[in-house]
């Protein structure tokens, strides 16, 4: 069945899918008209501001806000005491938005005000008196695990954690099969290494922002930049004790998210301020607040052991992964552990992961959460083994590649996948054999990601003039409205320009999952195609009525209803526009809907090749050339697929070379700004070449796989392998900032 579908997909001749039309929101975005989170205003609007803990770990003894509340122009003050006792599933979320008994990290919100102007709000914050009892803190993952470390929460450790760890170790997971020691015994060479990666931030250019308005009748409206306004609605309603239907959330244009906007920070606070003040409240984070108090990713400490035979067969792979995910449970260590060895077909494999809390902001998802760090460690060791055995690193990967029918390292058996195809395409790419100069090195690495589906609703309305309006519920973060319009146009057989897709508010459609997990083109695309097919069925039925023939004697071809063969009767085709024009006469408006939980997305793989040059004196690294090879299943709009490949690669380059959360002895973040938290800029980079492979996903009518996340998985390792080759010494600690690279070179020279 899967095979049939695949064959159908491969044969299909697309007219719109696979082309590169202009996006519908393009003009708004190049003229400054597009409205992002901070661009909304409301009459009588107040400014909301948050007071944040200066301590990494402290008991909140007392908050006295009376002087702030008395300041002229202050309309509301909110602390945790204003919120009802939350249901369990949002208790940590609320505690992260507004601290309860303890402040758990530098920047943790402890109070908020709403005032008539930003200046008054700033003054009011200074008048809030918070009495803290400062506690010992811990921000390092390995230290946080030690018995005797300061413990953030008592009693959160679950039944999977063995004795001998601190209470900051929340859970332990283990995956794999076979016998590691027996496998290692068969190896000609075993390499064992420890790695560390720093926490990095998603670094979206748009800070979190929202505008909340709550009336005394309990009805509320919220405008915000988010990857999922349905998630915002459900979470805020639970936190505020509201009925979900009373809260309408509208998603603004979103200025980047990368996973960081899959939860709430300001929104419940703004709603509570608005409720108390009886006026709309707008809140916008500063960049410093974004870095101190919204989600970075986990920092990690990982040990890897891999055995290999002389001819490059991996005999066993073993890894222990420790991820601190900030002040609350839920680091992505499970996904890191599952993905670590996923590209390979291994007889003996084991990964053990520990979820650890520490006095840092709660991590939020960041593009393929958990996977890049694990790939960094595993792909580094595979590279080292290949080189030390005199083998081509790509040959080794081809030799060990997981294929259809391989039992994956995390359990399930793979259907058709593209791991080997990306290795082979990398080997054949001219980049792989191009010459290198002095102090230059080439690295290659592979990455894997799961991809998701989930709850999705789409409504497709056929307008009276034959144009089509598609409503979907997933914020468009990188051109997805264009992709939806393309898929609708493809299915309906009309030009792309006649379809316009909008993102509907939470009152207009049913539940939609967050824009994450690379799910949108897959799941919303699937729902859009299904909604179009439903509308086609309606249009065929209308044509049948007009012609006075049976419904199943009508087919839809090239944007028109036609009698199905000569026996159905001789009628000229009726186009979509012609059917739409008489919709009122034939039964009323024409629409198609799809409400579905689109599970069963296909996994995807990428291989990256990178050339670097290392300055042996300063340790500075320059990226010379970069090639991304990834399986997209089917690229709906190739420009935006390439854009996802390039953007993910460059975020990974930043993670590998520069980006890092630096904490001082005092547990405070030392670099909460773009000056010291340095993301890649245009002059750091070459063009990023892309190769799109299309190995259709049997679970999607057009074969689409998610593409948004996999591209950030290989670069940490690819760059590390390239830098190690150029520097002549293995780098195991990210970021590979100039001082670290220089020190490693010095140490190697002795």
């Amino acid at each position, binding site marked *: 069945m899967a095979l049939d579908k695949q064959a159908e997909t491969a044969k299909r001749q697309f007219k719109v899918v696979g082309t*590169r039309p*202009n*996006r519908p*929101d*393009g*003009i708004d*975005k*190049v*003229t*400054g*008209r*597009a*409205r*992002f989170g*901070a*661009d909304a205003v409301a009459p009588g609007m107040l400014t909301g501001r948050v007071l944040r803990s200066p301590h990494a770990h402290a008991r909140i003894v007392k908050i006295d806000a009376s002087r702030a509340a008395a300041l002229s122009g202050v309309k509301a003050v909110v602390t945790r005491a204003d919120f009802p006792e939350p249901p369990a599933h949002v208790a940590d979320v609320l505690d992260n938005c507004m601290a309860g008994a303890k402040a758990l990290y530098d920047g943790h919100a402890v109070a908020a005000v709403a005032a008539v102007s930003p*200046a008054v709000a700033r003054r009011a914050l200074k008048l809030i008196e918070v009495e803290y009892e400062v506690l010992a803190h811990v921000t390092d993952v390995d230290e946080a695990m030690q018995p005797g470390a300061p413990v953030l929460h008592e009693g959160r450790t679950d039944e999977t954690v063995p004795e001998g760890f601190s209470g900051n170790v929340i859970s332990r997971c283990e995956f794999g099969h076979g016998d590691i020691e027996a496998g290692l015994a068969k190896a000609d060479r075993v390499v064992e290494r420890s790695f560390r990666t720093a926490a990095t931030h*998603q*670094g*979206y*250019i*748009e*800070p979190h922002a929202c505008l909340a308005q709550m009336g005394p009748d309990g009805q509320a409206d919220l405008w915000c930049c988010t990857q999922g306004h349905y998630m915002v609605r459900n979470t805020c309603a639970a936190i505020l004790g509201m009925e979900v239907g009373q809260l309408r959330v509208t998603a603004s*244009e*979103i*200025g*980047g*998210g*990368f996973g960081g906007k899959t939860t709430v920070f300001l929104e419940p606070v703004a709603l509570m301020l608005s409720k108390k003040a009886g006026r709309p409240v707008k809140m*916008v984070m*500063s*960049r410093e607040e974004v870095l101190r108090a919204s989600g970075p990713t986990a920092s990690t400490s990982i040990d890897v052991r891999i055995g290999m035979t002389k001819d490059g067969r991996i005999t066993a792979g073993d890894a222990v992964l420790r991820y601190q995910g900030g002040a609350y449970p839920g680091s992505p260590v499970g996904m890191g552990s599952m993905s670590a060895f996923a590209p390979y077909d291994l007889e003996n494999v084991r990964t053990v992961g520990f979820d650890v809390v520490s006095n840092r902001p709660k991590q939020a998802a960041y593009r393929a959460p958990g996977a890049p760090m694990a790939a960094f460690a595993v792909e580094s060791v595979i590279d080292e083994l290949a080189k030390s055995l005199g083998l081509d690193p790509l040959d080794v990967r081809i030799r060990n590649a997981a294929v259809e029918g391989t039992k994956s390292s995390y359990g399930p058996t793979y259907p058709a996948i593209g791991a080997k195809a990306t290795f082979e395409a990398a080997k054949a790419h001219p980049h792989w054999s191009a010459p290198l100069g002095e102090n230059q090195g080439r690295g290659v690495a592979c990455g894997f990601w799961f991809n998701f589906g989930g709850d999705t609703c789409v409504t497709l309305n056929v307008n009276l003039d034959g144009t089509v309006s598609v409503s979907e519920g997933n914020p468009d*973060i*990188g*051109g997805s409205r264009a992709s939806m319009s393309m898929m609708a146009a493809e299915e309906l057989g009309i030009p792309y320009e006649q379809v316009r897709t909008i993102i509907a508010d939470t009152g207009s459609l049913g539940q939609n999952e967050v824009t994450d997990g690379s799910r949108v083109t897959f799941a919303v695309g699937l729902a859009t195609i299904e909604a179009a097919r439903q509308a086609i069925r309606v249009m065929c039925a209308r044509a049948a009525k007009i012609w006075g023939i049976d419904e199943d004697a009508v087919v839809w071809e090239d944007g028109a209803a036609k009698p199905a063969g000569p026996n159905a009767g001789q009628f000229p085709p009726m186009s979509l526009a012609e059917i739409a024009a008489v919709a009122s006469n034939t039964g009323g408006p024409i629409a198609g809907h799809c409400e579905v939980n689109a599970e069963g997305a296909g996994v995807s793989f990428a291989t990256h090749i990178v050339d670097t040059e290392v300055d042996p004196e300063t340790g500075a690294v320059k990226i010379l050339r970069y090639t991304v090879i990834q399986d997209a299943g089917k690229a709906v*709009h190739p*420009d*935006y697929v*390439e*854009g*996802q490949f*390039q*953007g*993910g*690669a*460059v*975020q990974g380059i930043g993670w590998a070379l520069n980006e890092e959360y630096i904490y001082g002895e005092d547990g405070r973040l030392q670099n909460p*700004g*773009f*000056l010291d938290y340095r*993301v*890649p*800029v*245009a*002059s*750091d*980079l070459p*063009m*990023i070449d892309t190769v799109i492979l299309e190995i259709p996903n049997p679970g999607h009518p057009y074969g689409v796989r998610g593409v948004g996340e996999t591209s950030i998985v290989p670069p940490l390792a690819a760059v590390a392998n390239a830098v190690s080759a150029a520097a002549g010494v293995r780098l195991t600690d990210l970021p590979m900032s100039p001082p670290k690279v220089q020190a490693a070179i010095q140490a190697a020279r002795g």
Partner: protein
Amino acid sequence: MSQIHVTTKINGDETEFLCEPEDTLLDVLRDRLGLTGAKEGCGTGDCGACSVTVDDRLVCSCLMLGAEAEGREIATIEGMADGEVLHPLQRKFIEHAALQCGICTPGILVAAKSLLENNPDPSEEEARYWLAGNLCRCTGYDKIIRAVMDAAAEMRGEIANDPDDSLRRAS
């Protein structure tokens, strides 16, 4: 608490406003004049999302006080298109998919326009260094640079100067 009265020209229009002494030009544009095309990504001069030109010089409007606009000529993204005719850079950004989320786009367009006014025929490297003050987290800059180079070529009256790109787009 007394406000300052400022007379200036914005996108060619005489404009007057009142502002607090501490208001930045970005605050004034966004919150007092409703020109929200310039964005605040950092407020510290590190991201370029707030880029505007003041007397034809590229500046971060978050680093300049509103009061300093007195007597100057300011150009923002809102003034870049000529009515409904897009500037070639704007058009090329759409055609090359040089934006994903688009939050950096206004600042980058203003900066790129300023580049081409100073240097109509920049090398790729010159374009990269000129735009190094404008962060884009989504695109990896590849398509942005291609769009700028292509717009520059068109404005010089040449055809696309990126053979592999024009090939790719034709296919």
